[in-house]
């Protein structure tokens, strides 16, 4: 049984932290949507947090790098940094694929 199967019934709650409409942020969102559609179709929600609008959240959620993707659910909380262009590492980071 793969981790993906184990989590197949769960609802995924993802939050992407950006700072304005930078190319890296836009790339991250596009990459994230692609991965989700492929692996989590119908059971994910993506919330985009623009830190330029909500600077306080950077402190509250311990954000240093941008973009940062946080998997709020399922637990445990996972943190991915970067524009998610490395699909392999993105999947590993989200625990949709076991670490090689």
């Amino acid at each position, binding site marked *: 049984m793969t981790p993906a199967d184990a989590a197949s019934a769960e609802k995924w709650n993802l939050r992407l932290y950006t700072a304005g409409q930078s190319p890296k942020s836009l790339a991250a969102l596009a990459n994230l949507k692609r991965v989700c559609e492929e692996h989590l179709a119908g059971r994910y929600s993506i919330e985009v947090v623009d830190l330029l609008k909500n600077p306080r959240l950077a*402190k509250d959620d311990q*954000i240093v790098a941008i973009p940062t993707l946080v998997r709020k659910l399922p637990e445990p909380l*996972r943190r991915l940094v970067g524009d998610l262009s490395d699909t392999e590492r*993105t999947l590993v980071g989200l625990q949709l694929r076991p670490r090689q």
Partner: protein
Amino acid sequence: MKMERPAQARALPKAPTGIEGLDEITGGGLPKGRPTLVCGGPGCGKTLLATEFLVRGATQFGEPGAFISFEETGEELAQNVRSLGFDLDALVEDKKLAIDHVRVERSEIEETGEYDLEGLFVRLGFAIDSIGAKRIVLDTIESLFGGFTNEALLRSELRRLFRFLKDKGVTAVITGERGERSYTRQGLEEYVSDCVILLDHRVNEQVSTRRIRIVKYRGTVHGTNEYPFLIDEAGFSVLPLSGLQLDHAVSNERVSSGVPDLDEMLDGKGYYRGSSILVSGTAGTGKTSLAAHFAHETARRGERCLYLAFEESPQQLIRNMQSIGVDLEPFVKKGVLKLHSSRPTLHGLEMHLVQIHKMVAQFEPAAIVIDPVSNFIDTSTAIETQAMLLRMLDFLKGKRITALFTHLTSGARPTEATDVGVSSLIDTWLLMRGIETGSERTRGLYVLKSRGMPHSKEIREFLITPRGVQLKTMKGRKK
């Protein structure tokens, strides 16, 4: 090391730290609106210096500050400085201080592509803007290198960060851990070019000493020496004493030595106020008695006297001196005489001197007795001692404090040679020694030198009686 050019026409604006001594050696504080790098090994006091810079900025200079901690949480920081009387929580409450703990843990970070540190910038900006901070501390930004793998990116972001701080106009203190070959492990000095301060904590023969040095300070004259500093219950303090200056105001006023016979030998009037007096002699020749007389006399006149005893406890000293008719106790009770005892080896020489410096600042004595100064010498190497004594004498003279030091010489040595080359700094030098006359061993005292007065050249017999010290002429006695 590159030496800075001397004074430039226009003085750089400075942000005072409020830290005792540091503002003096930096000529008024840290470069305002610019970053300063504070580096040193673990436990050297970087974080404390940074914290105090913010706390004093907020409380004394009306400049709110932001503390960006990469290592300790806000709670830990508050706890660390609570014993120094700094209440960080209250400052945060009053919007004079903002604390943000930036946690960077590589194990929790999966890197999946390109990123930058805009999140950190947002946090810095928010911390600064939320309270209108004029000062900021980053302690220590090098932790970023432990959390992220892309070093080239980190370096370009650091460059951007320092530009950002300058644009914000905040006076920044960046701490960094001392590296093996550079001032900091990650070469932060490359980015901070305005001011670099090095802290050092070394242990020499089990005695620890802390030193501070301004490695560079662009556009400012600064002390280039290593200065000792102290961390105690009042925080950070630097002993800012510069090299010997010979432009002290001199006094023509005379103060009694407390021994009428000795005053008589000194032109009938005693010591000069604000002069330095050295009483040297072999063991048991009565140095402490002479010092106690002086302390007693000073206090009797109603002037404050600080007596530092390094061999006896205050009670012991009081009892022993009572036996020769010098009662110090009433003056101690009145508060004009302060007896302070400590073991010389307990601290390094610097620590003692910084402490003396502080006690003098608090107590503001007219006279000080250090009994004996030789014990200082035992805790340090000769060159260090000389430099430090020089500084101390300089400091005391600047304050017009009459200083009496006793010094124990070993019997085998020529009595007129001191281990420390302080002779040139001493104005009045009294030598005491045992004299064998026939079948009797007596004590003798003579004035080796006394600047600015015609003094006796006679060797007098030194008698300790129940009514104090007397100096009897030996003329006419059979040799």
